[in-house]
């Protein structure tokens, strides 16, 4: 009967702590909701949005200084898609490999060096990555490919992959590590190779964790602003190849929002693109969440 040993005041404090925790949780969640409401309100997407949604997303160019001004964001979401896709394409296989190596193959001292190194990489500010890409890749691209300006989607994707990599790798390593040791031993007991264990046991069991790794990487890649702003070229023409310049949604917002007349058509368009970014991130997270639970259930069955 442990209860009797607690004084009455401790119950009070328990209740208070519980209330405070819930309050903190509520505040956190309501921030997210308020943000969505705010962005939606400022964009006037509900009512009073001056553009046809198809024109806004696909047809119109971004030409706010033209007469009449036009605020289409086709170039921006194409750029976002290309840069994010490219960075994940590079970071996911590499990150899973690093994770597998760290949790299964690497000797202890390598793990002890690599884990902090990954955390350090994750903590480097975006502007440093951007600057690094600027002084190395951008300059060299100008020489190698004889481009008037070195900035392009390819460089932005490459640097973004490096930025996303530590998140994917350390989350993946964690996922592999959390697979029960007995499963490994059982498999080895059956006489299979290490590669087989990795492929058929670890990958399956770690799948929910790996989804989390991808989700984390994706969110980071979609939301990244400064580095892509510096490296993608920030040009409003629609890109046709990886070596052309582009302007991801985040860069568009960062470039334009500060000087924009509040509640103007351009302001609405910018907030609408912010809303789209928000919805896409939420949507992808939801899909990954659903997939994760789907696989969790299957692996328990």
């Amino acid at each position, binding site marked *: 009967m442990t209860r009797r040993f607690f004084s009455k*005041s401790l119950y009070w404090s328990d209740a208070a702590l519980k209330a405070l925790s819930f309050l903190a949780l509520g505040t956190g969640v309501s921030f997210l909701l308020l943000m969505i409401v705010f962005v939606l309100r400022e964009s006037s997407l509900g009512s009073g949005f001056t553009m046809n949604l198809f024109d806004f997303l696909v047809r119109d*160019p971004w030409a706010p200084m033209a007469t009449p001004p036009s605020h289409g964001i086709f170039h921006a979401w194409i750029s976002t898609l290309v840069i994010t896709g490219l960075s994940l394409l590079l970071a996911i296989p590499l990150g899973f490999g690093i994770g597998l190596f760290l949790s299964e193959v690497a000797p202890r001292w390598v793990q002890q060096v690599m884990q902090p190194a990954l955390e350090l990489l994750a903590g480097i500010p975006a502007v440093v990555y951007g600057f690094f890409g600027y002084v190395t890749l951008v*300059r060299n691209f100008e020489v190698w490919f004889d481009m*008037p300006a070195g900035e392009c989607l390819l460089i932005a994707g490459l640097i973004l992959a490096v930025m996303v990599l530590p998140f994917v790798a350390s989350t993946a390593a964690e996922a592999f590590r959390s697979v029960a040791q007995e499963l490994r031993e059982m498999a080895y007991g059956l006489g299979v190779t290490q590669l087989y264990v990795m492929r058929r046991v670890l990958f399956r069991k770690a799948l929910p964790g790996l989804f989390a790794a991808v989700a984390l990487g994706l969110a980071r890649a979609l939301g990244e602003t400064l580095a892509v702003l510096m490296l993608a070229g920030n*040009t*409003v023409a629609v890109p046709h190849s990886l070596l052309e*310049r582009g302007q991801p949604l985040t860069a568009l917002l*960062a470039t334009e929002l500060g*000087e924009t007349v509040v509640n103007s058509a351009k302001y609405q368009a910018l907030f609408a693109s912010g809303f789209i970014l928000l919805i896409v991130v939420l949507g992808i997270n939801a899909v990954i969440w659903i997939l994760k639970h789907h696989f969790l259930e299957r692996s328990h069955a």
Partner: protein
Amino acid sequence: MKNVRMLVALFLSLTLAPMAVAQEKNKFDGTVRIGGSTTLLPVIADCASQFMEKYETWDKVDPSFPKTRILIYVTGGGSGFGIKAVMDGTVNIGMSSRDLKDAEKTQLGPYKEFLVSKDCLAFAVNKKNPLTKKDNLTREEIARIFSGEAKTFKEIDPSLPNKPILIQMRDAAGGSTEIVKTMILKEKNFSQNAIQVPSQGANLKKLETNTNAIGYLSSVIAQESAKLKVFKYEGVAPTNENVINGKYRLSRPLLLLVNGTPEPTWQKFIDYVLNDGQKIIQEQGYVPVRTIR
């Protein structure tokens, strides 16, 4: 146990303290909040720190004020933010590096603007850029470059190489871009292939490293760089003197804005910027407004 109590105390102090502060509205407020244009930011921040150093408390500014410590906060955010923040009351004084749009004027209602300085705009290239063969650019040449009609140097001058010109523009809503559009491009539009540079610093850096680029920026900043060549526009050099005597037309106003009528404390600071502050403005290379007719 103790931890919990401390936690509760901490929580209460964090939530209640701001409420208490909010209720003291009618009391004398020794703080002035300023925000907006990043062009004006360094100038006004310098003025603010000198103002605070010189007077320390408000009673030394004017004996009718109480002996409260002077606190002036200056933040950036851009001209658009500055104007919106004045509307909302987020800041007391807004900074803008462009004239207000009609829509903003109607939203703001009665307001006061103070012309603090002017910023002279110049076109510049890297010293290794082929265009350095020229000394002067006409309105038409610039319009052809920035609209994308002339894609190579050769199309500007047949003696120049057949290499593509890289156009650098500032973000569309910034004051400088608006000047280029209304005074040079006129009915033409900016080329879609222009690189939009998000800040004056990035603009300078890019021009210093890229030998194909042409851009526009504050003429002082361009002239301070050893790597850049600054062009005459229509035969007139972009100097402060030429802005003052009206020969050089490409300049933008740097404004301080107040919603309604300024509080006496704000007015004192604005007066300071308009008088003693003009020296700082001149030191930083902008055109002091007292000399503009």
